[in-house]
């Protein structure tokens, strides 16, 4: 837990400094252009920007520790926490849904591919995953929209439905963006897991399991999958953090009010409290998901349990 706190502390410094050092005057962002220097100076004073850096950091950090991330500079001038509170669930849902879909696609493909290593299915799957990986994610999104929305009319293009309002409507709307994310991630997961599975399948204990009369499917699920899933689980942890913060393109494509859109819009407007708060929260998600992943290694391999305890 101490490490986590240390990481977050460093992130807070980084976020704060980065935005204080970038060019652009927040006072201009608030008031717009064409005001007198006096008005800008007054605004800077009001925002506390005439204080020394350390004092401003202390103020901000004090606020953060009390759950106050500040107020948006640009209208609507709501609290940063509220803005994040409405964007984060969208991004989290998208990330989790996308990763679940990705795993549902990747696990069977990787197992099939590894079992028929070097065979036709393996080569086809390998080519397909390479193709997906080399494609920009927005292209996948556009293709999916063209195919499933405009072509087949399976999904309608409409406003985001909050999960609290209608679970069905929410899932219906979230499915396509989640699938867009999932295809990308699934391609990567498939490659990673296939590689590890191929290595594991050459292990003696796999041959030994065969020699005990176990069926190929059973050996795959019960003997090979778990020892092969370390890289996958590690990447999964990184993916959660990454997806929460950087699905901007997908969010724009599908008009989703998520974290990526929040950060980019705020950054464009010079709305630094929102950027600071959002980046900090994304870092928190990142650190938390990776901490969880670290804990899960013990579940995957009993040999690592002693070392942790």
């Amino acid at each position, binding site marked *: 837990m101490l490490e986590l706190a240390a990481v977050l502390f460093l992130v807070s410094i980084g976020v704060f400094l980065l935005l204080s050092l970038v060019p652009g005057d927040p006072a201009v962002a608030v008031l717009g252009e064409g005001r007198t220097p006096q008005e800008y100076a007054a605004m800077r004073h009001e925002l506390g920007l005439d204080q020394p850096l350390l004092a401003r950091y202390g103020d901000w950090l004090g606020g953060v520790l009390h759950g106050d991330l500040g107020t948006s500079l640009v209208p609507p001038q709501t609290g940063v926490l509220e803005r994040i509170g409405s964007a984060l669930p969208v991004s989290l849902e998208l990330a989790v849904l996308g990763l679940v879909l990705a795993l549902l696609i990747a696990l069977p493909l990787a197992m099939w591919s590894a079992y028929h290593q070097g*065979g036709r299915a393996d080569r086809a799957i390998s080519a397909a995953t390479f193709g997906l990986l080399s494609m920009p994610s927005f292209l996948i999104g556009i293709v999916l929209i063209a195919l499933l929305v405009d072509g087949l009319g399976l999904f309608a293009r409409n406003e985001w439905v909050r999960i609290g309002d209608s679970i069905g409507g929410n899932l219906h709307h979230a499915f396509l963006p989640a699938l867009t994310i999932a295809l990308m991630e699934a391609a990567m997961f498939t490659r990673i897991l296939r590689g590890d599975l191929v290595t594991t399948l050459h292990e*003696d204990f796999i041959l*030994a399991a065969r*020699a*005990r*009369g*176990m069926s190929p499917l059973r050996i795959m699920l019960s003997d090979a999958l778990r020892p092969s899933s370390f890289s996958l689980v590690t990447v999964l942890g990184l993916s959660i953090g990454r997806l929460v913060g950087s699905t901007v393109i997908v969010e724009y494509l599908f008009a989703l009010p998520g974290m990526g859109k929040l950060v980019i819009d705020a950054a464009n407007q010079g709305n630094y409290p929102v950027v600071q708060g959002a980046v900090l929260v994304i870092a928190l998600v990142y650190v938390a998901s990776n901490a969880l992943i670290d804990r899960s290694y013990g579940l995957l391999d009993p*040999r690592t349990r002693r070392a942790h305890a």
Partner: protein
Amino acid sequence: MSTPLLEVTDLRTVFHTPRGDVHAVDGVSFSLAPGESLGLVGESGSGKSVLGRTVMGLIGSGATTTVSGSVLLGGRSVHDLRPAERRRLWGPEVAMVFQDPMTSLNPVKRVGTHLTETLRRHLRCSRADAVERGIDLLRQVGIPEPARRMRQYPHELSGGMRQRVVIATALACDPRLLIADEPTTALDVTVQKQILDLLASLVAERTMAMVLVSHDLGAVAGRTDRVQVMYAGRTVESGPTRPVFAAPDHPYTDALLASIPRLGNPPHTLLRTIEGNPPDMGRPPEGCRFAPRCGFASARCAEEQPVAAVVPGGREVACHHPILEVSRGR
């Protein structure tokens, strides 16, 4: 003599590699009666492990492998069975003990799971029943506190204990044939004898047949009824273990025996070795494969492959100049 449990006829295993075909097993025949034990000896690379796996059917014809000849186990051709039928043999008919207990147990599975899943797969018994049988099996292979061991993971056990677990797993469904592939090579010297004696006593108790694959002649001597000496994928000599080791007919067997260090030797006795290396199995020599390293080799040996000839005492030897002729006939 009763009907054979295992009958191997002219078995060949060829691996198709990018560097050409490798004839790992090249026309080996033998048979095994119920309860009989056979030692399969030879240097590393002589094809004995591949032979064991091919006999079991773990290695079969595929994209990169061609198996020919026949293996009859209890009258059924192992390689002609459908995969699902073959899997039903693995456990109740034939089982294998592997070389390295550090790698042949799944590190993420409890000891007990290895046993119970095998039992439940073949005997269709309840979980509780399987656990009870598993504990009993661990007890039979001499593992103390078997109930506690069942819940442990392989890494919590010593090498010798792990190999006992591997043996217990192999014995779980009471196979009629046990193939032990270098079962003691990866173990401490002090543990090797214990494991070999355990195997020998289990084989005797259960009238189970055993193929003991080993490069260690000492492991095979005294624990097997018959011995088959392999060199470069072929059988060079076979027969009852004691007479073969007492007076080998084939120069290779003789050289192997001579290269065993003996306690009776005076200090600083030079250890005899066999000059040279086993042949590259991608391009084996034309005639007798041992000819380039053999002290008795003649021009004929380099050209003509010797055929196995029956010699008195139920023995066979594949050599143009067997020692019986050279030395005893002189």
